[in-house]
């Protein structure tokens, strides 16, 4: 049986994914994507995939978000959709 903590995390994941794609401010979207990465990292730790969680924390929530923000700064912040 899947632990209830997992289920909550999974639901949150979907919500953050949708938010990241709905927000028109791309800087905010990048930030929400960071949160998304962090949540998924938690999920993996919960699923006993510690190495994956570690990597995701460093790469997904860390570097990915930073380079996304960097790109937003170098391009446009507003999106039409």
């Amino acid at each position, binding site marked *: *049986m*899947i632990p209830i903590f*997992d*289920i909550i995390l*999974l*639901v949150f*994941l*979907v919500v953050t*994914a*949708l938010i*990241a*794609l709905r927000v028109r401010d*791309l800087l905010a*979207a*990048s930030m929400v*994507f960071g949160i*998304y*990465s962090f949540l*998924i990292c938690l*999920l*993996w730790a919960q*699923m*006993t*995939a*510690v*190495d*994956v969680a570690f*990597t*995701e924390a460093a*790469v*997904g929530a860390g*570097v*990915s978000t930073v*380079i*996304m923000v*960097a*790109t*937003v700064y*170098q*391009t*446009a912040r507003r*999106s*039409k*959709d």
Partner: protein
Amino acid sequence: MEFVEQFIVPKFNYWIYVVLMMIGMHAMIAKNNFFKKLIGMAIFQTAIILFYVSIGVKEGANIPILDHHMMPGEVHANDPVIAAKFTNPLPHVLMLTAIVVSVATLGLALAISQKIYREYGTLEEDDILSQIKLEPND
């Protein structure tokens, strides 16, 4: 309700991975803004990683690191290792690779979108297409 109990609850992970993947894939295809497409791409790739990690989960199993003291030469050297007690490590290995690949792809795609912005002054697909229409085409 029975359907939910039988097919959704026991495989909730798989359902969510499909949902996330479809969210990401839809964004990749249908979003107008290139940056949004890339966020979709990242979500799409993490969804697949979620799928793989879900494969490897064993109920009641521990993280795939043997106790330091069980190493040869130590006290419990000859205790057999029981596979069921540890999570399947193989999907984790694969997904480490996949994560690295996804960040590499993301970085490259961001660089390309910066170059597009340099050329066209926008990241909106429709604006760029209307600019191209004005240029001499093949």
